[in-house]
């Protein structure tokens, strides 16, 4: 299942890039992260408890930074395991300058296997959309906070 979209930020490319490429920052964007572990430069693991309304779904997700051309392009692979569900996701971001701000073109290819996929065909798409919206919403807030922090002379974030 492919989802994609564009987003614009009142922040510099570097600022957006900094958020998107810092695993710890990313972990902060995902809903329900309980535990986060950096394995090496390009690999990290998160234990999440995704709130799904009727209850939460626990997953252990391994991330791999597959491709990175700062500050314009990144590709990320994620593989998650939960009870009755295997999730795999490949996400790509392309950042371009947009006046004073930054435009982001993103796409994600999400695949879900297992019992959950078997039972939830008709709701998986909207649920994935909801989760993506959550992440993007959090990203918006984080980037604005960063931009505001930078404007206020805060410390530059490390890549």
């Amino acid at each position: 299942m492919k989802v994609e979209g564009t987003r614009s930020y009142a922040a510099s490319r570097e600022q957006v890039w900094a958020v998107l490429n810092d695993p710890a920052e990313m972990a902060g964007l995902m809903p329900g992260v309980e535990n986060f572990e950096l394995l090496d430069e390009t690999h990290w693991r998160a234990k999440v408890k995704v709130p799904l309304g009727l209850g939460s779904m626990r997953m252990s997700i391994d991330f791999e930074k597959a491709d990175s051309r700062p500050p314009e392009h990144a590709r990320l692979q994620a593989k998650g395991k939960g009870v009755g569900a295997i999730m795999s996701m490949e996400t790509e971001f392309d950042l371009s300058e947009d006046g004073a701000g930054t435009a982001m073109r993103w796409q994600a290819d999400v695949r879900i296997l297992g019992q959950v996929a078997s039972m939830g065909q008709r709701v998986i798409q909207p649920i994935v959309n909801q989760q993506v919206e959550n992440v993007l919403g959090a990203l918006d807030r984080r980037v604005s906070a960063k931009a505001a922090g930078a404007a206020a002379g805060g410390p530059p974030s490390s890549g």
Partner: protein
Amino acid sequence: MLLSEVGYARPSSVDEAVRLLAENDGARPLAGGQTIVNVMKARAAAPDVLVDLADLADLRAIATAPDGALELGALATYAQVIASSEVKAARPVIAEVATQIADVQVRNRGTVGGNVCSNDPTNHLPPVFVAAGASMTLVGPDGERTVPAGEFFLGVYMTAVGPGELLTKVVVPARDGAGDGFSAITIGADGTCIVNAAATVAGDEARVVLGCVAATPVLLTAAAGAGAVREAVRAAGLDPPSDLHGPAEYRRHLAEVVAERAVAAAREET
């Protein structure tokens, strides 16, 4: 079958229930359990604590308010709704729709509150309540608040009920000459819904709400004629899900049909 370990509490008052919901991370109210127990069986999603509302007798009541509004307690079962003279007098469509929900056993246990709070896109009641302009009463640690049905449904399985909050009742305004209608295409007789629509017609205006075509009920308003209703559904640019019971284009087409039928039924009641 065979659920994960779960905490269980059975409060004896709404206050205690709200406290339990607020104090326990991952707590979720348990009403009839006809959706949540199933979800827990699959273990894909599970609450950590179930707060069983069974002893909150006040929440079972179905009553007519002085202004003629119908007050459905969150714990009123479908069977109660079907048998209720208040429902029949105020908003008969709700009883009619309740008779189409699942089967006798589920109707004996399943509740109005459970139906709207689980907000599965195939549920019948969310479109009915949105069309009728109902409102949901929520009680939380900070007291009571009211959310219009149109703002209550936020996503698949997601509603405006916040952490530590409890839905206590659904208030459906008096009909005041308006008519209600409902139409659904289901898999077999009263099986899982493929597409449904509820309509409330007042004068020449129809509020049509489509279910099962998006994550939440889709509200449209149109002149209450067949052509206008179909046009309004087409103009809505629906992007319904595809599944084994019907591709998106079939659902898109059915949406027009059930919208028109629901409006026609509603007009008959005006």
